[in-house]
């Protein structure tokens, strides 16, 4: 049974279609990335899954429970981190965690471990939340979402506001959840984050699901924009190098697109005296859509 399944899930506000016929399946034990620009319908989809919104059409199930009629049973098994999470300013971090754990009616079995990994010591937790920085609030948000060891974690922009060290700690938590067979459904704008932790990724645009793909498959098809600055000599002979396309040379500066294995391209560059080299990885959305455009043409 999939952890999440939606069929033609639609949400309309008058003439506006916030979500249009979303068909999605997230497998149990999978880490699933959900990408899209602001207003694409990501939050609408998440809020429909959590029962905050009622679908205009279509249906959805989480662990086999209907999102409309069995929302409470669903939320019993979910841990949710909203984007830009809000807290009660006058309560301490610990009071929040205790209060939310009591509402979950599940023991906060993971709390100590999460607080340890995210560097939220007891001294910090005993302070009122209004004194917390954005990063500390986000860490508290992650702990409240996962402290009761939910079967499904729904995380909206979870690494927002975390410093690189804490992001790494957060990824380690996700990897551990994955090893333990927990399902994670999260939205993000950060390519490296999605690549690092997700099994599959979906992209949503204008309320519609544009594509769903395995990360491993995307990686093999991904291209990079390369700029090479070289010293002297003519244009390098790159036309026959595997994976290289769109070569443009202007003076001592060359740009091209390299897809797949970058090795042959780097080998070809040894013929040049390279002064500078820039390799830009496309945003996942670009790579993703490019991949799908290609596939549509073939």
């Amino acid at each position, binding site marked *: 049974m999939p952890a999440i399944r939606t069929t033609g899930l639609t949400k309309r506000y008058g003439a506006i279609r916030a979500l249009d016929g979303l068909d999605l399946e997230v497998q149990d034990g999978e880490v699933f990335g959900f990408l899209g620009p602001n207003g694409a319908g990501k939050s609408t989809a998440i809020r429909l899954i959590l029962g905050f919104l009622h679908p205009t059409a279509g249906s959805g199930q989480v662990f086999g429970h209907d999102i409309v009629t069995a929302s*409470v049973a669903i939320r019993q098994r979910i841990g949710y981190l909203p984007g830009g999470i809000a807290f009660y300013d006058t309560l301490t971090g610990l009071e929040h965690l205790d209060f939310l754990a009591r509402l979950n009616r599940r023991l906060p079995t993971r709390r100590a471990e999460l607080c340890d990994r995210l560097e939220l010591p007891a001294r910090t937790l005993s302070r009122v939340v209004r004194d917390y920085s954005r990063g500390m609030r986000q860490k508290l948000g992650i702990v409240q979402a996962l402290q009761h060891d939910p079967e499904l974690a729904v995380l909206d922009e979870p690494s927002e506001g975390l410093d690189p060290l804490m992001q790494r700690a957060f990824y380690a938590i996700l990897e551990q959840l994955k090893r333990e067979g927990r399902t994670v459904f999260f939205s993000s704008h950060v390519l490296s984050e999605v690549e690092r932790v997700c099994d599959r990724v979906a992209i949503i645009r204008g309320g519609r699901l544009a594509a769903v793909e395995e990360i491993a498959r995307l990686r093999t098809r991904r291209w990079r924009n390369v700029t090479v600055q070289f010293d002297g000599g003519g244009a390098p002979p790159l036309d026959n190098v595997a994976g290289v396309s769109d070569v443009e040379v202007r003076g001592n500066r060359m740009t091209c697109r390299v897809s797949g294995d970058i090795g042959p391209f780097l080998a070809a560059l040894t013929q040049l005296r390279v002064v500078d080299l820039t390799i830009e990885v496309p945003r996942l959305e670009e790579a993703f859509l490019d991949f799908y455009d290609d596939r549509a043409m073939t």
Partner: protein
Amino acid sequence: MNAALFRHTWRLQRIKLALISLGLFAWGCFPPVIYARFGVQFETMLQSGIFPEQFARFGNGDIFSLTGAVALSLIHPIALILTSVFAVGFSAGAIAGERQRGTLEVVLARPIERRVLYFSLLGSAFLFLGIAIAALLAGCAIGSAFAGVLAQLPVARLPLVWLNAMLLFGAFAAIGLAASASFDRFSPALGSTLAIVVVMYLLEVLGSLWPDAAFLQKYSLFHYLKVKTTLAGAATPVDFAILAAAVAGAVGWAVLIFPKRDLSAPI
């Protein structure tokens, strides 16, 4: 009712509740003392015809009798403002305010039915109002004792007065919560509840001061707060039933509307 939610609400409101209750207690002490000290003089002035009788009978209260003074303590703007902290402010913000701040979605991401959340908040509002009104009536009793007129106060009927006042302010709390469940933001929820309370208050006061406008009083819930009648042992169940119906109507609306509402992302 959800015990965890109830405790949480209590924790957030307890200091405010203590201050309001203290304020109402202090205020409740005054009218009996004023009655004991100046009641006769005021009545003499009134009987001399210097000013119309209506001007000395604010709402259903007056200062020519102890029961009138107790009634005045409940209908006076000071009491209204203090009880409105919970009857209007707390109730109007309980759902819409939390929704606007974003804390509602953190709570509702837990396995809690919206109706359970609603009844937990309604129960909290009633508890806070119950304590606040009890503090005011306790102030009246203490003030009466201090002024040496406690014997004139039918203390055994105070619980019925408490119930009458609870139903009135409970109705406003229920209306506030219904508004809170109906709006996405705090200001319209607060504004609509406040408008209802103020209009009803004006209808009652206007009707009590101006005989030609007396017919307006029956449209005000304040008119069914019958403190003097209740203390005189002549309370009619209809007054209580009308207030209870107002509570039931507002609760029914909220219970119907809140689970069906879409809770889109906080603004």
